[in-house]
């Protein structure tokens, strides 16, 4: 077997399996991503997208396989603030009594002392992050008073403040307004230029073609993986979506 130089890959998942109490959620999944790559994670509900994210962040343990983040274990990636996770809006308690500022500050917790007292540099990082997502007017707004798009931007700011080199985004475009969608698109280009690695899940096929260099089609395991232009074919998509015709997904023209 050839030896792989893990340092070349930001994310290296090799034959990973995840099961919840014996119920298999994901098996034999592989993924390799380098710096500056944007990869779309596409699959049905229950296909294992969130499980894949959970495995990469270490939120669930893998039962088989190996995950290397920057050539190191998931645990050291956590310690080094390598990965930032942006949850989907539905995964967040929007009634939680917390302000935009406090949410973004949570991005810095991992690098603070035990009391989580913000230093000058943390405050600056939070300010900058909030500015980048254009929420400066909402610093002390409770997240319950934000629109779906503003809330999404808040969590993006948290990821920016964390200064992670890998961003995992769960449905970044769902339930957002046009303005937010445009801002997220711009941020993606900036992130790419900064050399960040992005893995995003989406239901929207148009976004995949627009942003993703690579695409990973999954249905409990990897159906296809590779360059978007090569892999994102009607046949593959049909297999991924359990036999549903891509016409239905793309509209009749495609």
């Amino acid at each position, binding site marked *: 077997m050839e030896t792989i130089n893990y340092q070349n890959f930001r994310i290296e998942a090799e034959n990973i399996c995840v099961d919840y109490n014996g119920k298999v959620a994901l098996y034999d999944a592989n993924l390799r991503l380098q710096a500056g790559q944007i990869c779309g994670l596409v699959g049905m509900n229950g296909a294992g997208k969130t499980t894949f994210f959970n495995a990469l*962040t270490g939120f669930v343990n893998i039962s088989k396989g190996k995950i290397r983040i920057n050539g190191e274990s998931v645990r050291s990636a956590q310690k*080094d603030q390598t990965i930032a*996770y942006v*949850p989907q809006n539905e995964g967040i*308690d929007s009634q*939680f*009594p917390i302000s935009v500022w406090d949410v973004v500050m949570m991005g810095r917790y991992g690098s603070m002392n035990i009391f989580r007292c913000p230093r000058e540099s943390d405050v600056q990082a939070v300010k900058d992050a909030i500015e980048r997502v254009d929420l400066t007017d909402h610093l002390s707004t409770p997240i*319950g*008073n934000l629109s779906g798009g503003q809330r999404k931007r808040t969590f993006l700011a948290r990821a920016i403040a964390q200064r992670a080199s890998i961003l995992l985004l769960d449905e970044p475009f769902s339930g957002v307004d046009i303005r937010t969608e445009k801002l997220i698109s711009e941020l993606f280009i900036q992130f790419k230029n900064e050399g960040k690695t992005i893995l995003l899940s989406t239901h929207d096929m148009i976004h995949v073609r627009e942003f993703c260099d690579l695409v990973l089609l999954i249905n409990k395991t990897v159906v296809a993986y590779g360059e978007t232009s090569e892999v994102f074919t009607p046949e593959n998509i049909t297999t991924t979506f359990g036999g549903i015709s891509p016409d239905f997904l793309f509209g009749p023209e495609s």
Partner: protein
Amino acid sequence: MELCSFLTLDSFITDPLTHDFMRKALLMSSLVAAVCGFLSCYLTLKGWALMGDAVSHSVMPGVVVAYALGLPFSLGAFIFGVGSVALIGFIKQKSRVKEDTVIGLVFTGFFALGIVLVSKIRSNIDLHSILFGSPLGISLSDVKQTIFISLLVVILLSIFRKDLMLYCFDPRHAKTVGINVFFLHYLLLTCLSLAAVVGLQSVGIILVVAMLITPGATAYLLTDKFDNMTVISVLSAIISSLIGIYVSFWFDLETGGSIVLAQTFIFLFAFLFAPRYGIFKLKKLFAGYK
């Protein structure tokens, strides 16, 4: 108590203070209220109200066994409190029974075990005071233990205040940035067991769950800031305790019940008149007059 003896507000407040047991009861109950009120914020936000119910009832056999063996009852309570949660998790994982059902059957089982044990190991345990609390009959050793446990819980919650908030809000992010979520989970459970033990003293095991839920729920209706929520929760809990004890003194009512009723009334007031989230949003009412 003679009703005519409190003609003035002044004597209403000061008369009870002449009794040593009342001073002790007021001090202890306020302390317990503060601890439970603080913890209550996390339970409300985490959606752990049922868990609070479960743990507070499950500590009962622990308290009885500890008494029988001459150990500090906080130790017994802690073991059984955390044990009940572990058992709930285990049964849920290994069977098809739904979680709320599992919680219900585990804690009632533990509770029943406690009652049976009390009837067996009669000696010096008073079932009535465990079930309904006896803040007016607190002994000196109980006072010391309550102070010690309360301070311990408050210090732990204060140190990990922000981490616990993050844990309740977004545990996945906590994990992603390298915060020990497992530790926080058990820290919260430990504090819950300890709070149940001290709360047991003032309002009893049946009503302690109200001390762990109501203040947080009240505060949740009144603010959108976590720090304010903590302050409001603690204050409303302390005020309820004071009101409950005074009312029970003057009108000769059950103390634990009076304290919890006072909390419930404060909650109802917030429910009806909270500025943003009340039924009759006060802000809107006043805005109408402008």
